[in-house]
């Protein structure tokens, strides 16, 4: 069992969530509430990581953010920042890759709130923040919860993008999914077995817990 790799995966998943939850929430609400020319294009870009092969996405991220690219050079010269083959690079890749998993469920949840409720809040004297806090977020909560769980679990087991962007540096970019692949390559099936099973159980547990919580939230209470 490669505990370092598991811990790295958990760290990456938590960091991705920390970045993506507020950002995704904002983007999802904006997409749900606003209509503008080119909205389909923005929505398409958000969903793109879902349909693109992870290696393709990883390749483009590597090429566009790597030290040889204009962006990579600029980051290196201005901030002394490298985004490839380190944890920060993994985080950037993971955030981009999980965008649809975070944004889509939350956007649907916001869209499902009847406009009359928002208007009722305004007529009742609630300002923007009060409406967001007391009406929109509680109603969108099941969507937000499932998006967060989905993102976390999805990052935990991500392979293609992580491999392209981070390589496989133990303790830095070697996540549990890559470690499993490594073990299989080395014919150490017993290790691979244990780690795969752990990942499976963790994912199942998280998804089941989110479904359970959502069902509880949605249940009409007398």
């Amino acid at each position, binding site marked *: 069992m490669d505990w370092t790799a598991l811990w790295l995966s958990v760290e990456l998943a938590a960091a991705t969530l920390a970045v993506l939850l507020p950002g995704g929430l904002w983007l999802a609400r904006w997409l749900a509430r606003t209509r503008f020319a080119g909205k389909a294009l923005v929505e398409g870009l958000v969903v793109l990581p879902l349909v693109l092969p992870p290696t393709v996405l990883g390749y483009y991220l590597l090429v566009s953010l790597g030290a040889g690219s204009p962006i990579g050079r600029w980051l290196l010269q201005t901030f002394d920042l490298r985004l490839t083959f380190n944890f920060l690079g993994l985080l950037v890749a993971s955030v981009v890759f999980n965008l649809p998993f975070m944004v889509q469920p939350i956007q649907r949840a916001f869209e499902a709130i009847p406009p*009359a409720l928002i*208007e*009722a*809040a*305004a007529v009742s004297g*609630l300002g923007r923040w009060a409406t967001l806090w*007391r*009406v929109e977020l509680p109603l969108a909560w099941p969507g937000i919860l499932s998006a967060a769980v989905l993102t976390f679990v999805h990052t935990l087991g991500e392979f293609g993008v992580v491999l392209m962007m981070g390589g496989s540096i133990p303790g830095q970019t070697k996540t549990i999914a890559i470690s499993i692949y490594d073990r299989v390559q080395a014919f150490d099936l017993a290790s691979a077995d244990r780690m795969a099973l752990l990942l499976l159980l963790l994912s199942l547990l998280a998804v089941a817990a989110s479904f359970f919580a959502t069902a509880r939230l949605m249940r*009409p209470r007398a």
Partner: protein
Amino acid sequence: MSPAAAVPDAADAVCDGALHMQVQQDRPMPLAGELSCAPGELLALVGPSGAGKTSLLRCLAGLMHPHSGRITVGGQVWLDTARGVCLPPQRRHVGLVFQHYALMPHLSARDNVALSLLHVPRAERARRASAWLEHVRLSPEQQRRRPAALSGGQQQRVALARALAREPALLLLDEPFSAVDQMNRQGLYDLLADLRQVLRIPIVLVTHDLAEARQLADRLVVMDAGRVLQQGTPEQIYRSPRNARVADLVGVQNRFAGRWLGPLAPQDEADAAGWLEWLASDGTPTGQRLRVRDKRRLRVGQRVTWVVQGDALHIGAEVQEACAGGPIGCVALRAQVVARRNLGETTFAELALDGAPGVRLRITRAGPQRRALQAEGWLQVRLDCDWVHVMPVRTG
């Protein structure tokens, strides 16, 4: 809340709490009209769906911004496009009861009401929310339930309590009774009547139910295609609709065609009377001429539409009563019942006019007076011509 919310307006010297509204726009949808509502008065906006009733209400609440217009309530300016004033809904003291209640599904009835009391301290908030809910007759146990666990009528009461808890300067009701069954509806009518005794604020009700509008409203505003066509008391509108469209919209049953003949004798001029030739709907004469009130607005020879309320038609024994037409007088007709429908305590009948079988008079009678409508054969009918209201036919 900033002090700018209460801009007193010198132009509206009346600070009695009355509502004055005037809007005008062509796009995205036409909307035009002017209305006023005194405190304690209940104004009903009526008209077919798409007439702009709800849009007008949304303009009042600040949920929709008309291209140009002016809204004042109690001298306070809510909207004045000429001066660039447009208060957001939060700063208009308005209570709005939505058509489908729009209660927050995740909050209990009490928390729903407390939501419009965020400006008061937390402890006071719960106490006041409970008091309002008690006022609309919801038990403490029901107050703890979420909307999904309440009946339609109870949800409606919560919505009303929420609107009232804001202590509004204007109460708006958007088809508030449409989703409530008839039995609960009567209870809500009574509740509204009680509230009107207490609340001295203008109340604007949107409804497509004319019976409801007549029963509840002091005045009606008839709308069609975004325009206010006529406003007045129900009696005024039913008796003298401004034009054929209004007559149609408010469901005036006895509507006929005619040709205006004008005054024919010196006595007509003295009585301000004129003659009307009664035509069948295809334009053929019925052989009847009516002497009616002349408002000097019609050309001689002009085709007209005219209406008369059922109250002005007397049948059977009623004909013996004195003609109330004054100098205008009455006309005696002969007609035969050709269709009869009994609905509980009332009978609705269609009578074919002698000599013009295509022309139908519609009469409703209740109680013992229904007997006259059961007769076979020819009936004496008297038409009180003072009640006849003549309108020009709209061309084009």
